[in-house]
Structure formats: C-alpha cells, structure tokens
C-alpha cells in the first residue's frame, strides 16, 4: 500500500466530476481526544446547510480522556444524509475516517465492501498498532483490499500546512491537534460542501486564541484543497448529494436534549407556569440540566442541581406543590432512586414531569450507550399500584412535541408523567422544522383558584383531576400527604373500603387519559396485513426504513409506532388484531412485547437487541422476512 504524500505541484488535470448519489453514511472515528465529536457536528452543519435530510449518531466512551490509542478510548460520530428522507444513522458505512489503528480495528466491520477508508497513516506506528491489537500494520497487508483506501500522512500534511502560515506562535502539539480539521476539510471536499460555516465557527470558538483559530482554519482549508488539487487514487470519487425534498419552512438542527428542554419550556409557557428543573448530573441526561441552566432568568425557568436523585425528584414535587411546574430528568439508575418520590407524587396527585434518557443497564451498565430497557421501570417500577402516564419520543424533533404533551397531560390530570428518550435520541440530531410557539393553543393551569365547596381531593367529573391549590392561596388551606387519604376530604384514612376506592380512582384517572390522546395510527402501510412491526422510541427510524423497503418489494406489512406507552392507545388492541403476525423490535430484552401480550393476549413476537447500538435496518428486514414467508 502506497501512502500518498501531498505534492503541491500536482495540479489536477481534469476538473472534478462529481458522482451524484442519493444518500451516504460517513463515520469519523478517532481517540476521544481527537475531536471527533466536533468534527462530526461541523460536518453535520455543512450537510444541513446543503439542504440534505440527515440523522446523526455520536458514540463515545464513558471515560473523559481514555488512554491514547486504546480501543476503549475510541470516539465516533456517524452521519447518514441524503436527498431522500433519512430515518436512521445508517447500517453500513460508505466512508470511514479512522484517525488511528484503534479506530480502524473497532469500526472497520461496519464499512461496506468497496467503501472508502480514509486513514491517518502517521498514527499507524508500532506502539499504536500494539495498543489496538494489531500484530502487523494493516496498511501493509492485503486485508484492506476490499475497500478503497486513502492512507494519508495527515500529521505531516498538517505540519506542512501550518508551517506555511506566517507569524503564528504555536507548538507542534497544537499543530497536530488540528488534524481533525484537515480530515474534515477533505471529507467536505469529497461531498462538495462549503467550508465557510466551519471557518466561521472556528473564528468564534477560538476568538480569544487567534493563532489557534488561524491554524485550525488553515488545516481545514488545506484538507479541502488537498482533495481539490491532488490526483487521488483512480477509484476515489467525489460525490454530490442533492438537497432533500423537505417541507417548506425554517429549519435548524436539533438534538433530543434540546428538543426536550425547549418542549418543556414551551409546555410551561402554554400552561402559564414557571418551571423548576431539578436534576442530579448523570449521563446521558446532564445535557438537559446544562441547556435549561442556560435558559434561567428570562424564560420563567429555574434550575436546581440537587444533592442526589432523590432530592431532585422531591424538590420537583415540592415545586409543583408550591405552584410551579416541577420537572426532573435522569437516566435509568437515577430514576430507580426517584421511585419512592414518584409514588408520593402519584399519591398526592401533583403534576411533575420525569424525563428518562435511557441507557444500557442494569446498574451502571453502559453509561454512554443507548438502550430502551426502562419501559418496565416506567410503567410498573414502583411499589404498590401506582399508575402514571408514560410517553416515548421517537426522534430528536419529536422530543419537543412529546415534552409539550407531557406538560399538558401532567397539569390537566394532576399526575406525574414519565417521558422516555434514550442516549441515542438525546445526543443525535436531525433537521427540524421550527414550530411557531405563538400559534400554539394554550392549556392554562390554575394553581390558585379555590372551587366552591373545596376539598383537596374533590375531582373534576371529566378528568378526575383534583384541584391544584398551592400554599398562599386565600381560602384554600388544606393538608396533603403520602398516607392514604379519605376520598374527597383528604384526611388520613386507613379505612379498607376507602383504599379500594382510592386505588380504583388512581387507576381510572390514568386509564381515562386514553380518551384524550390520539388513536393509534398506522405509521406506514395498511390497516391490516401479514405483519405489523410495532415499535416505540428511537427504533422509529430503522423500523420505518425496513418497512418501506419490504413494502417496495410487495410485502403486506405495516409499521405501527407507539408514542403513548401508558395508557396505551384505546384502539391498539383492535388494530393489532388485523395482522397475521406482530413483531416488536426493541433495544431491550423484550419489554413492550410483554406489555402487548399481557394487555391484548396476542402472540406478539420479540426482536431484542441490547448491544448498546441502534438497530440496523437489515436486522429488522431479516427478522421480518421470516414472518413474511421468506427465509433470509
């Protein structure tokens, strides 16, 4: 394998011909200190500016700076973009950028045959090779022959570039840290993207470090120019991915964490309530605390970094008791600690929103990896009969919609609502048609209105909600508590018949919400057929793509995506009965499938995946084919 070295004299003889393609999947992989997340997010920005639809998948280790060159320290950022609707981060990579041997060995199996592999050959030294587990240098072996390999000495190319910049005072270490920008420049060229947004971003990011800004921009432009001017191997093409046909409107990229925070803020506004977000740092939920902390002051939002998860949920309960919207956010292990507090909110019928950005478990599990294995915890995970509302977001943009809905249901029905996202949704991003908050219908909540003949547990005839009378309200003095309380008066009561009544009321109040949420629709396909693939949360993308592909082949199957996990949509049982088979792919060991079997007594089958990574489309297609009379 020949390592290409830049020859400044090598002018391209012919103008670049770009091959037009519908979609592409690119993954940047390197050490956790190599800046792969920044590289990926800048490529995402350029891709969005070019008008493609896209889905991203950042994947990084739990360690902040794992030892250099190790496989467990590899950080990756994947993006699938195209001129068609993009629903997943992509199964197989078209382009893999590997900044060192560890990045190569851990990511190569995802690169499709004949895919383009860009490697920083300068990192393929004995020590790095050994750390990654290579006995010999793969760049010098035949194993990579089935790929198109562009092995470049990016260190040397970056150093040469920066040396040519006059008057900057930088160390060699600082120069080598711009390698990611060089690689980004090359990949931007590969897809005919503009470097301007990244150049501008670097200028802002390093506004106080002018020399660092200068060398990063130089490296970025040099990588781009390298593609433009150098005669690359004959099999390395430049591509063009035309803009996607998105609905008209104003767009931005949004991550799931942003979607949830902005949705909560919008929900609080629509309910006309101040919001207090109470949280304890935990991956991957901490971003929500950061985002909302940045919004305190002007938006009626206050954040409270609690001493632990229990304090976070109980402070949220205290806030709601005090007449604000109390919200807490965490991930599975933290939600487990909040459990008793959530029970108090159910018992006292106070509205709180609990956001669970799920991660792999049990216990500490896989802090930075995605999983959707907290469905049981959300629906059932409390002592006693303790029903609440469970919603699940399907994508970063949908997080906004579901967060608004969570606030609406919590305040209208005086109940805790758990909103499930996951590590994948929280961190990944997609283009989002920005909604108009001004045009949204308010659902104003009253916290200081005392109804006639007030009693703390009197109920609205329709919603069964009790009145929300915060302390400080004239004429509303009352006491509430976690001890079972008498129907209506709320006085302590251990009366057996009363406990039955209250248990039934709590269950009925939540079950009735099924009449206030949309009926289950068929996400893709017809209302009956050979197979329904039922999903929830972040499996929305891969299931949707798999169903589209199989329907294109003529199969009679449908995609049914559930947002309302509890209560389930009122028509779901009848709908599922229209299909000969029901398959439930989940990033857990089979949780929704158990719920569906229990609720509807149907023979729903499970397709579990708990590898810490989202489903590949092909995995769902293969499983579906078995039900469609084919063997894969």
């Amino acid at each position, binding site marked *: 394998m020949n390592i290409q070295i830049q020859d400044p004299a090598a002018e391209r003889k012919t103008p670049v011909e770009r091959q037009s393609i519908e979609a592409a999947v690119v993954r940047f992989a390197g050490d956790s200190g190599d800046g792969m997340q920044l590289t990926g997010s800048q490529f995402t920005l350029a891709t969005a500016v070019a008008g493609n639809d896209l889905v991203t998948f950042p994947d990084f280790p739990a360690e902040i700076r794992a030892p250099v060159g190790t496989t467990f320290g590899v950080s990756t950022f994947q993006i699938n973009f195209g001129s068609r609707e993009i629903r997943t981060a992509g199964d197989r990579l078209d382009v893999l950028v590997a900044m060192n041997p560890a990045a190569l060995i851990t990511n190569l199996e995802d690169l499709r045959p004949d895919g383009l592999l860009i490697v920083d050959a300068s990192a393929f030294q004995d020590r790095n090779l050994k750390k990654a587990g290579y006995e010999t240098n793969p760049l010098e072996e035949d194993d990579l022959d089935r790929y198109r390999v562009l092995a470049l000495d990016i260190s040397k190319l970056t150093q040469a570039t920066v040396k040519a910049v006059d008057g900057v005072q930088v160390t060699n270490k600082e120069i080598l840290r711009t390698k990611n920008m060089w690689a980004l420049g090359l990949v931007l060229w590969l897809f005919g993207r503009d470097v301007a947004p990244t150049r501008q971003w670097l200028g802002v990011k390093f506004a106080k470090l002018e020399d660092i800004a200068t060398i990063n921009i130089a490296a970025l432009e040099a990588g781009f120019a390298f593609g433009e001017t150098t005669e690359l191997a004959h099999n390395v093409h430049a591509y063009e991915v035309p803009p996607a046909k998105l609905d008209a409107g104003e767009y931005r990229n949004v991550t799931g964490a942003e979607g949830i925070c902005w949705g909560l803020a919008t929900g609080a506004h629509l309910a006309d309530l101040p919001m207090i977000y109470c949280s304890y740092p935990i991956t991957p939920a901490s971003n929500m605390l950061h985002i909302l902390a940045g919004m305190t002051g002007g*938006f009626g939002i206050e954040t409270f970094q609690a001493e632990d998860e229990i304090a976070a949920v109980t*402070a949220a309960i205290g806030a709601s008791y005090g007449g604000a919207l109390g919200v807490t956010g965490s991930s599975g292990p933290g939600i487990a600690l909040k459990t008793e507090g959530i029970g108090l909110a159910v018992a006292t019928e106070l509205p709180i929103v609990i956001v669970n950005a799920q991660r792999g478990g049990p216990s500490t599990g896989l802090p930075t990896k995605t999983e959707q294995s907290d469905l049981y915890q959300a629906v059932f995970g409390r002592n006693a009969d303790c029903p609440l509302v469970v919603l699940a977001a399907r994508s970063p943009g949908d997080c906004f919609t579901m967060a608004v809905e969570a606030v609406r249901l919590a305040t209208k029905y005086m109940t805790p609502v758990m909103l499930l996202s996951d590590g994948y949704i929280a961190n990944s991003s997609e283009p989002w048609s920005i909604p108009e908050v001004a045009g949204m219908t308010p659902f104003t909540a009253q916290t200081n209105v005392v109804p006639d003949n007030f009693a703390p547990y009197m109920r609205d005839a329709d919603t069964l909600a009790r009145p929300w009378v915060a302390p400080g309200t004239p004429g509303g003095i009352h006491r509430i*508590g976690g001890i079972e309380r008498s129907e209506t008066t709320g006085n302590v009561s251990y009366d057996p018949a009363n406990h039955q009544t209250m248990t039934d009321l709590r269950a009925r109040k939540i079950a009735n919400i099924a009449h206030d949420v949309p009926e289950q629709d068929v996400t893709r396909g017809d209302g009956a057929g050979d197979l329904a693939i039922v999903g929830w949360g972040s499996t929305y993308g891969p299931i949707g793509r798999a169903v589209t592909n199989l329907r294109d082949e003529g199969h009679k199957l449908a995609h049914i995506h559930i947002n309302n996990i509890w209560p389930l949509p009122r028509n779901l049982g009848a709908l599922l009965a229209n299909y000969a088979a029901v398959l439930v792919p989940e990033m857990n060991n089979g949780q929704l499938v158990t719920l569906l079997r229990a609720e509807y007594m149907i023979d729903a089958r499970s397709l579990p995946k708990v590898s810490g990574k989202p489903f590949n489309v092909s995995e769902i297609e293969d499983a579906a084919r078995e039900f469609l009379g084919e063997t894969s």
Partner: protein
Amino acid sequence: MNVVPELKPDDYATDQEVRWCPGCGDYAILKAMRKVLSDVGADPEQTVFISGIGCAARFPYYMETYGFHTIHGRAAAIATGTKLANPDLDIWLVSGDGDSLSIGGNHLMHLLRRDIDLTYLLFNNEIYGLTKGQASPTSRPGTVTPSSPSGSYDRPAHAVAFALGSGAGFIARSYDVAQPHLVATMKRAREHRGTSFVEILQNCIVYNADIFADVTDKKVAGDAQIHLEHGAPLVFGKDGDKGLIFDVKTLSLKAVALGEGGVAEKDLLVHDETNAVLAGLLGAMDGHALPMALGVIYCAPERPAHRPAHPDRPRGDAMAALLDAHLRKGHTWHVA
C-alpha cells in the same frame, strides 16, 4: 397579602384528632408552635408545615395552615422546591432525629449549606418511635432496644455539631416543656433569614422516657442548663453562682464558681452568637461536666444570598415571542 385577623393559638388547630401517645413531648411543642404563630400574627394562608416520616412528622395535620406530610427523610428537599416556587411562603419543617440525621442526613446537610429561608425543627428523642423503639442515630451507646438487644454500639450523631459543620447560619436548642423558652427560641428562628435550625429535646414517653431528665428535670435544671443570651456573661447555676470561662491551655470551656478563687462575673466568657468557634464549644456541652446550652447557640452575621432572585417571567404573547426567538438562535435555514 391578606389582612390577618387576630388569631388565638387555638385558631391554628385543625379539626383532626391528635394521635400522639398521651404524655408525649410533641403535645407541648404543638402548643408552643400555635402560640408562636398567634403571637407573631402569622397568616395561616402563607404558612406551610412540611414534614417527613415519624411521630413528629404528623405535625402538619394538626396545624390549620397549609401542610405537606411527605416521605421519610425528604422533607428538606421538598421544602427547598416549594420555597423556590414561592419565596414568600413562611415554611416550617418538622422532623425527628431518624428522619433528619439518618435517612435524611444528606438533605439536611445540603439544606443548611444552601441556607434556604425556612425554619427547621428537629424533634430529638434519641429513639425511633413510630417504628416501635429501635435505636436512632442520636441514641446513646448502650441503648437497649429491639434492634440493639445488647445495647447500641454506634456513637451518636450530634445535631448541633452536624448543623454547624454543614454551614448552618442559625442554630438554637430548647426542649419540649420549656414553654416560654421554646416559644421565644422559635420566634427568633422565624425572624432569621436563611435556614434556622432548632434542636428540640423531646421526651418519648413510651420508648425512651426521661432520657433528658438529667438536664430537664426541675431539680437539676439550674446546674445542668445554661441559658444563652447574646452579649451577656455565661452565667448558670440554680442561684446564678456559676459561670463559664475559656481555658487557654486546653482550648476548652471550664465551669467556675463565682466568688471562688477570686473569680468575678467580669472574668466570665460573654456569649457572642456570631462566633462559630464558641458555638461549637457551647453546642457540645451535654449537661454533665458542663451545662447544656439552650437558646441561640449561633446566629451568623448577615450572609449574602447567592441564588439570584429571578425577574418576573413574561407571560402570554411576550413569552411566546421570547421562545420563538430562542428556537431560531444559531444556524437556521429556509426550505422553499
């Protein structure tokens, strides 16, 4: 704010039957509490009692104010959320020694360091009452209970030292049947801005009867108690004939008899409630070698509040416009 009609102590009582054991010290505290609210003219609609779990935690049900009986150990966190939601409320937190120093120790520590503006009443009876008499975190070593049949092994937690170590800005101590003293102490606590922490020695008549008798019994009280008064010499004794001096050699307090060896009142230490070092020494006195300190042990000089008061939030169209602008911050693009 409403104009509050003059209310008598009984006007702060609810119609609920009080369910503590006959003779429980809680009755006396409840009585003092109602008197405090009556004396200061507290608006019941602006007053909230928040409690955790335990005998003491039933308190809110008996106060004709707003009230929230929550879960074990978490009252401090819940009250923090309520105070953040409505800083105008006058919040009283009622908690026992198990609730405060065992299951809720973490929350109490952080409440105190955050200095949330509320009054914390710790009813210390050195035993778990509601769960039927197990050793508590403040039980003395050797306390024989169903969970410690050979006597408890663990050293007790010390409420005042804990509060001081957690950065509390106001620490006081009283006991259940010391009616005028308890009332005065709780009033001082209510006046203080920030978390006011009051340890109230409370007699559990069933599981730990008379555990404080060596300090509170009228026969010994004079010599076993010292009533603190800011700026006054530290005098105690049935006949006011004893006092405290600071022994420089041992860095400790020492009891002396006035008139003996030429010791006069001017030689005694003067109580300075703003002195945290003195507070530590006074708080540690247990009524045996040295008298137990009652009253305001520590009241920090004015401390700045760190949590900024947020401006009034915009409402309606103004908030919608603010949110719409926020959603469009950063890079956006139009699709035609």
